[in-house]
């Protein structure tokens, strides 16, 4: 079985971010990068399927600038077989993938010559939280998509998934090839072992530019984007908490309800 994993490198959620001078992006000069946490689930699930089935191949596809190489090495250390890196830098610090639409178009084009039975992506990337790329890729490739999967079983021809939905779960199946997105809880991503870290360094990355996958850079970047960021700001700082005093839990609850009604006007 050929499994493709879509991976995005995102700013490490533990490291602080700064807004760039342009006010429409974050300042990436000192950013620490990491694999999007949901994509770690995807990588793990692909590797688990491969290990269970044998005779399978896991190919990583990622779009991003030079520093994505670091994330690819981690994925190699986890165990992916091959990595395709679409380096979307068109000009000095000008990129092709600037919104979900341009990103999805690039991924779909990259997948033209890659055989696959199943594509696994994270349900969203934690940097811009658009939730759109997997769906757009599925749409462009005319594939069924099952999102927010917490469990799957795959045969050679179909995939059965448990999907989390509002307030419960649904069991959904689709014929392969298909695309699924992973949700927290599906697995516990492995840590690369030491030897694999060392070996990963020596593996080759198939790096391509937009022209190499038949795309015209003119149609990408700002020209191809359907979403444009106008400005960015940090959410307001959280104010001081309030400790409710009272002689019993019942009394405290009563005061709380009052406050929620009258001060916060939320109930």
């Amino acid at each position, binding site marked *: 079985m050929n499994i493709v994993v879509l991976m995005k490198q995102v700013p490490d959620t*533990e490291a602080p971010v700064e807004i760039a001078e342009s006010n429409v992006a974050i300042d990436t*000069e*000192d950013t620490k990068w990491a694999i999007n946490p949901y994509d770690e689930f995807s990588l793990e699930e692909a590797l688990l399927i491969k290990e269970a089935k044998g005779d399978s191949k896991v190919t990583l596809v990622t779009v991003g600038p030079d520093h994505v190489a*670091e994330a690819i*090495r*981690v994925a190699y*250390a986890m165990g992916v077989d091959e990595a395709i890196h679409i380096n979307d830098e068109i000009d000095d610090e000008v990129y092709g993938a600037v919104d979900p639409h341009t990103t999805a178009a690039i991924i779909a084009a990259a997948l033209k010559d890659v055989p696959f039975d199943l594509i696994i992506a994270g349900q969203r990337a934690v940097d811009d939280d658009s939730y759109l790329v997997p769906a757009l890729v599925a749409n462009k490739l005319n594939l069924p998509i099952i999102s927010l999967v917490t469990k799957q079983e795959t045969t050679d021809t179909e995939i059965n998934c448990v999907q989390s939905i509002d307030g419960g779960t649904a069991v959904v199946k689709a014929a392969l090839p298909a695309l699924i997105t992973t949700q927290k809880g599906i697995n516990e991503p492995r*840590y*690369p*072992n*030491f*030897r694999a*870290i*060392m070996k*990963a*360094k020596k593996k080759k990355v198939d790096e391509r530019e937009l022209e190499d996958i038949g795309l015209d850079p003119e149609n990408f970047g700002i020209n191809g984007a359907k979403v444009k960021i106008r400005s960015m700001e940090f959410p307001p700082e959280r104010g001081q908490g309030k400790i409710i005093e009272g002689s019993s839990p019942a009394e405290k609850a009563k005061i709380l309800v009052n406050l929620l009604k009258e001060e916060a006007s939320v109930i």
Partner: protein
Amino acid sequence: MLTKIADQRDIDFVLYEQLGIESLLTSKKYQDFNKKMFDMVLKEAKNISVKEFLPACAECDKVGVTFKDNMVTVPDCLRKPHHLLFKGEWGALTEDPEYGGQGLPFTIAQAAMEYITAANQILVSYIWLGHGAGKMIELSGTQKQKDLFVEKLYTGEWGGSMLLTEPEAGSDVGALTTSAKKMDDGTYELTGNKIFITNGEQNLTDNIIHPVLARIEGAPQGTKGISLFIVPKIWVNDDGSLGEHNDVLCTGVEEKMGLHGSPTCSLSLGSRGKCRGLLLGEANKGMEIMFHMMNEVRLEVGTQGFTSGSLAYLCALDHAKQRRQGRSIEKVGDEEAAQVPIIQHPDVRRMLLRMKSYVEGMRSLIYYTAFCMDKKELADNDEERDRQSKLVEILTPVVKAYSTEKGFDVCVEAMQVLGGYGYTREYPVEQILRDCKIASIYEGSNGIQAMDFLGRKLFGNKGKALDCLVKEMKECVAVAKEHKAIKDLATDVEKAVDKLEEICRNTMGVIMSRQMPSAFASAHPLLDVTGDVIVAWMHLWRATLAQTRLDSKDRIFYQGKITTAQFFIKTILPVAMGKLDAVTYEENPAVIMEEGAF
């Protein structure tokens, strides 16, 4: 919750800016490595430490070990981290890949271990003991012994231990009474009782390999008659399969101040007359074999003390930025003024900077020592090998004793910064402090380190190791003096180095005189003040580099290095100069005082 367990920026600074460890990559031994690999190793060490090892740390402390029916149950929360450690192959970072090691330079392994140790010292005790036992077998074992044991110990699949201490033989290992008798099949039968044995019995690994110090019947008294044996908890057959349970009985575990997740066991060997062991290396050479791995082990224990301090400092810093209490000193009397974070109070800043200066100085000292170990291995001529070897020798007791004491002091100060909160179990500092204390006691108490420093490292090699150390320090001073802005600091350090050298030589002279006991009464103060001067040197070295980088984007970081150096050299080093005066006081009252007068 605690998430920052080590100062990554400072670690990078020491590795790549201060020591320039990329120079190791030009050697044949490390030609397959590159900086990106090192970075990835450290990143993964940090990642797994924060996500998996750290969360089990407080839980280990709370749950503790239980002892029942001669068996020890370790906290369940250790299971997953231990498994990941084994699967991830973090067990023997510097050892030969042929035996399950990773072949990393000491310096990089040191940095990886800083993260792992900071996250969970209990877990690290498994790494260290497995590694130590494996190392002795790799160095002195027969091929068969190596094949049977080393890889399993290096990877952590089996646990290791170290059986030295007995009720009558603590610091004085030579007094041990555990005995060994040669059997017809070439194995030995051991009889004796050991106490205080870390991880001597546990339910985490399928087997435990105990290296045991014992005296073969008829062997000389004292350390000259001590041999080393491999005693597996479960006998290992020639084909590697597990055989019968050996006669090693755990008769109890200690209730103790810290490290609650690690059992400290009393073990009875041969209580049923059937404890079998294999002789490791030659008979009566047990102590020599142990000494071969001593430097590494003492560096590890020094690391335990240092990382405790580093972690406690990070907790205190975090708290000081968040806790609002009191008004700015400039607004005293203004009742309307808002409360400020306590980091704004001069006294809190003093405590924080004091902690920072010790922590960063110790980091440089320990990494530098590891770097000397690397350079010793890579040296292409005898002279260089000898020089690096002498540096390692003289620095080892300093690393062990100074880092475990100053690490503990930093924990105490961190608790002070947290105030009442620091004293409660809600905050991690009290556990760090409790866990840390043992480091100054075991692996050769610090009193024993001081005697080793004065007796062996200074006097024993006729001051040659001291020469090497002083030369290194003076080279740094000379470079620093070329920078006008820090020339003054360089001069202070130079004076301290000169004075330290003079006092070391004086004290060596005293050893030869009637006042010899007084010299040993001053051994610990001398070791302590040597640590101070070395740390001052490290700060000068750091400041010299920082001085050239002040117009980079990281200006605040580099300025911080200079300010920290100023603090240490201007407020702590002067005290050290006074301590040096105290060492010269020849007839030490502690020695002449009559016992009844205490």
